[in-house]
């Protein structure tokens, strides 16, 4: 945590005022045991190339929209200018890929994130067909049992409780049109 390091580095033990960046970092993950290892140059290059590619794609599709002129701006003028700026930033990121230290490596725990995203995608795919209750209960159960490490009994009871509470609030009290099965 940035704050601790600042407090220790100073000879007279008076804490240095952190920068905005350090304050944001310290508040972002105050409970983290250790900061995640930074991503390597290859990952930084991939990100930089993706940004550049987005810029290029924008420029190309703006040309199709018609970029007009300064005197008569067209539908594509503004996106075209933005696309050029994005390309410049992307190239700047490519140039600085070796010195960049603010991207994080994917740890083993990132598999949990993939699972979490999976539950949300499943929820989205199912809610229109069978309502929110079953997908919602399954989502909560996966998040509690496997992503949160809760016990079986807590996971079952809490996920049923959450869905019941949502049913009571959204369908019962507010009467908003959330797709529901029952």
């Amino acid at each position, binding site marked *: 945590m940035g704050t601790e390091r600042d407090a220790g580095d100073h000879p007279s033990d008076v804490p240095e005022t952190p*920068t905005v960046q350090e304050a944001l970092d310290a508040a972002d993950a105050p409970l983290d045991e250790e900061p995640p290892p930074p991503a390597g140059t290859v990952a930084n290059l991939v990100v930089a190339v993706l940004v550049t590619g987005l810029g290029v794609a924008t420029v190309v599709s703006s040309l199709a929209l018609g970029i007009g002129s300064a005197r008569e701006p067209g539908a594509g003028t503004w996106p075209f200018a933005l696309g050029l700026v994005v390309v410049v930033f992307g190239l700047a990121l490519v140039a600085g890929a070796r010195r960049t230290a603010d991207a994080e490596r994917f740890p083993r725990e990132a598999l949990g994130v993939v699972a979490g995203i999976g539950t949300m995608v499943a929820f989205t795919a199912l809610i229109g067909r069978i309502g929110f209750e079953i997908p919602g209960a399954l989502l909560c159960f996966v998040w509690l049992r496997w992503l949160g490490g809760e016990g079986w009994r807590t996971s079952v009871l809490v996920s049923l409780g959450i869905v019941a509470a949502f049913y009571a609030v959204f369908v019962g009290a507010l009467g908003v049109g959330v*797709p529901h099965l029952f």
Partner: protein
Amino acid sequence: MDQLTPVLQGFAVVLEPQNLLYCLVGVVVGMLIGVLPGLGPAATIAVLLPLTIGLEPVTSVIMLAGIFYGAQYGGTITSVLLRLPGEASSVVTVFDGYAMACQGRAGKALGIAAIGSFVGGTVSIVALSFVAPVVASFALDFGPPEYTALALLGILLVATVSGGGRVKALAAACVGLLLATVGRDGFTGAQRFTFGDLNLADGIDFVPIAMGLFGLGEILHALEERHRRVQAPPTLTRVWPDRADMRQASGAIGRGSVIGFVLGILPGGGAVLSSLAAYALEKRRSKTPERFGKGAIEGVAAPETANNAAATSSFIPLLTLGIPANATMAVIFGALLVQGVTPGPRLVDEDPELFWGVINSMYVGNILLLIMSIPMVGIFVRVLQVRGAILAPITVMVTLVGVYTVRSSVFDIGLVVAFGVLGYLMKKAGFDPGPLVLAFVLGSLLESNLRRSLLLFDGDPTGFLTRPISGVLFAAFAVVVLLPLTTRLLRGRRGGPRDDDRSGGRPDTKELV
């Protein structure tokens, strides 16, 4: 007396039972999320956006504002008791606040923080009441070129003072501006970047973007963090600040109020920067700087006063110019747009009930927070025992079901999940989603004003520089761009400290004081 009438009517709006209730709800939620590390005020407000749809505009903004400044109070509690800053704006409070708690003076630290927050907030509201109408009347003369300059400067400043590298923040802002172009072009009627999808024909809605990037993105990112157990908070001693403490802290509270108010107005300034600046100033002014970090009461009073004053004054650019000063204000701006209210210089005249209702609600909110933070602090500390594992799926469900209720659209659920994934990946790659969201809400305003300006100038871009106000704003823009580049060059010549993307040219608080 004529000018006072709308102000007094604003109090009548605040005292309506519904508004009082939502003010209370807002500050309680704000306190809670301030105490809980992880979800910040911008994310919370984003996740609760659907809840505000059914409310009156003034009621919803009263609640959302309460969340924002309530979080400044809540962040203090964990900083002092547990050495865990709940919010970035309370990070410096950790130094002296935790030291005071270790010396058995936790009650004094929390008491002075609450009093300072109350004074800072109140001073800021009074100043806001006088300054805002003046700024608004000045801004009535603003034309498209001035708005173009203002929006560009606002986005640049927010990107400059945000987390992550500067180039990445600016790239994220550009992506936000690009996302705002999706849909039908207001000038030519052409479909842009819709890929033939009817759901995109009217553009991307603000709600799924904010909820996805801020809400789901943060939750997903938190999934891969290995958490340390929260230790039990020390027993709270019932020793409140006495007369001597008050005398010692009064100067810090006074200066903190001014710093907070001024920095809060600046785009990108806000609560974090002002708390750091106020702390640095107190340490520099002090005759005994060695006490700092060892339980100096000014070290708690100054940043806590300043962050609250800044949270309040950051409403000025939003309510008078229609330019949000930080990510949280961008979400409140979006909430107003969803309600059909466009904030800007005409707001104070056209919708005085909303304008003064929101401002005056902050007096009430600050009083409520003062009451809650001193005697009821024990209750909020207990909130820390709620496990994150249980809160996470609830937040996910609120987001997924909530976003559906806004437009009854399953497509929007897909969109919020997609932006949640994007938000997670952005955080992994070192891109702050804040500038993206802020740029998105300003995107259509910026583009339409730029195009109107170009038509006005007959295609001659030097027209921006010859008009006095837009000229000054563009000059400020140039300074913000060039200043860090020159410092970087100078530093490089001297073979100075590490100059990677992370620290490169970031404004140091010491330079700003």
